């Protein structure tokens, strides 16, 4: 599997000996250690592992939010760390959708405007934006909250809006770092079901991290990290 080349059209992400070290006082922590990984289009992959195993670091490296200490990240064949800062922001804007654990939404914008926000940054025209926003509101089941401010939403609703926002820009894939960490079981389940639905219906590629067993059970591929190394990479047909 890892031997797939970028000329395989389905490969979206490929990492090469990807390492990131942090200095912690006197000692060096290898948050990720020579990781080789490929993500293909349409995957629904969870990165799992105990706290401190390097999940966040890995996702940040792949999303171009952190610079690696060594190794490379290719997104659709582009070595993202060769890009200048400005180009990288722009690359993220057009290719990667993000869902964070907290603080996803812009408080002063409505649900609808939050979803349209990235599209507006991309310069999408108004009709297109309105149509896409309506479609996504429908998909996440929040049509009736289009005009609400984020502060009036529950945690689960906020995360669904964040997913819709990430999707709106039609990215190659979506990175979600512990998207359910602050949700109760039911909300977590709803969010995962929404993501699955999008994966199946819209062929959206998801790469998310979690340490919640119920969330892991929904994944089609489980990558297990321990001390910054991949210890298991399993696929499931569900």
């Amino acid at each position: 599997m890892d031997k797939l080349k970028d000329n395989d059209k389905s490969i979206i992400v490929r990492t090469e000996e990807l390492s990131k070290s942090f200095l912690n006082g006197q000692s060096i922590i290898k948050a990720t250690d020579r990781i080789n990984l490929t993500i293909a289009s349409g995957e629904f992959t969870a990165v799992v592992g105990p706290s401190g195993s390097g999940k966040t670091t890995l996702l940040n490296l792949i999303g171009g939010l952190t610079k690696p200490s060594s190794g490379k990240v290719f997104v659709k064949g582009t070595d993202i760390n060769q890009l200048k800062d400005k180009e990288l922001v722009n690359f993220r804007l057009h290719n990667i959708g993000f869902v964070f654990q907290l603080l996803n939404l812009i408080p002063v914008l409505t649900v609808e405007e939050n979803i349209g926000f990235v599209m507006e940054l991309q310069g999408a025209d108004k009709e297109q934006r309105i149509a896409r926003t309506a479609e996504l509101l429908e998909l996440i089941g929040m049509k009736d909250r289009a005009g609400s401010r984020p502060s009036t939403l529950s945690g689960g609703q906020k995360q669904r809006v964040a997913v819709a926002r990430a999707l709106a820009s039609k990215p190659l894939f979506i990175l979600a770092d512990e998207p359910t960490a602050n949700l109760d079981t039911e909300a977590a389940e709803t969010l995962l079901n929404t993501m699955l639905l999008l994966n199946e219906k819209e062929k959206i590629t998801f790469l998310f991290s979690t340490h919640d067993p119920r969330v892991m059970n929904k994944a089609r591929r489980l990558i297990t990290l321990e001390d910054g190394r991949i210890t298991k990479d399993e696929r499931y047909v569900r």
Partner: protein
Amino acid sequence: MKIIYKMAFRNIFRKKGRSGLIIIIIALGVFAASFGVSLSNGWSESVYREHIDMQTSQLQIHANKFSDANEVAEFMDKSVVQETLSAVDEVVYASYRLKTNALLSTAYTSVGLILIGVDRDEEIKVSSIHSTIGSDDGNFFESDIVRPIVISKSSAERLNAGINSKIILSLQDSSGEIQRTMFRVGGLYQTNSTRFDNTTAFVKKSDLIPYLNIPEEAIHEVAIVVKDFRQCDEVKHKLSQLLPRHDIKKWDELYPLLHLINAWHGIATFLFLLLFFIALGVSTTNFMMMSVLERKGEFRMLNKVGMAGNRIGLMIIMETLFTTLIAISIGLLLCVLAAETFSKSGIDIKFLFDNNSRHGYSTVIYPTINNRDFVHIFVLVPAISIIATLSPIKKVLK
């Protein structure tokens, strides 16, 4: 990019208390600055008006050799000047005067001063001295007293004279002979300038000419009012060419102190506004620093999802700009309202001064809004706020 402006605008109302506070602070600052400048404008304008009105008029013509010594023999021919002035459209009024030094005596004492011989009808059009004569203090050559003289109240006090008092006037005619005549006080004027009041008295031209031994048509001084105050320089230039053997002076040459007041007023206004702008810049920086740093996480998120640093910067700048524009509008509106309120009655600043002395200006100030100062505030305050926002932006984008 409408979304950036939308966000910037809504961010203002996010922390209503704090935004409200900074808006009030800037608005009050703008109000204080603009109203302060309006008062100072009003004051300096009143100083000008008063001096020009009562003392110098806008332009004066003298014979070339006529000097501060008021030489009786250095006269001009009225008809020559009159003919020239009638050819200059901008000249609307002119008063043809005689001017000489004189000694005024009563049984009590004598004072020396400058005597101005006027034609009432001409004089009241170029000077407001006549309007300072109170109702119990006689008038400006309107009664049928024989040989009336109008002196200031302070001169009257010194001479121990009142309305109708006899005053002996002594002066030198053009040949150096001393002439003496009796006049009667016909009016008591009072300007805001003690200096002027102590040194000036008025008589009718026709009452004065017989004692000067100069031709009937002779005059010493022409005081001129032009159509538009701003034309003074232009008219002066024209007249200098038309009357090369005469001396044409503008108000600021006639009373150089006015020039100084003008310059000083400009400097003071500038310093005042500068101070205000610095204070404004510092408080804006602090305010934006606070407001921006506490949203650091939010800006980071925006950057992660693809909002470039320059767009975030633009958004923060817009936020400052909107805040300041709201504040400036309120501040300037307050200023306009206040200026409007006091435009009729004025503000009496007498309490600032020693009661009895007069300094050459009225203690009542009529605030005067100067569009140029308003434009300065409207352009500079936002510009300064934007500059003041740069360091918070830099800090948050790091």
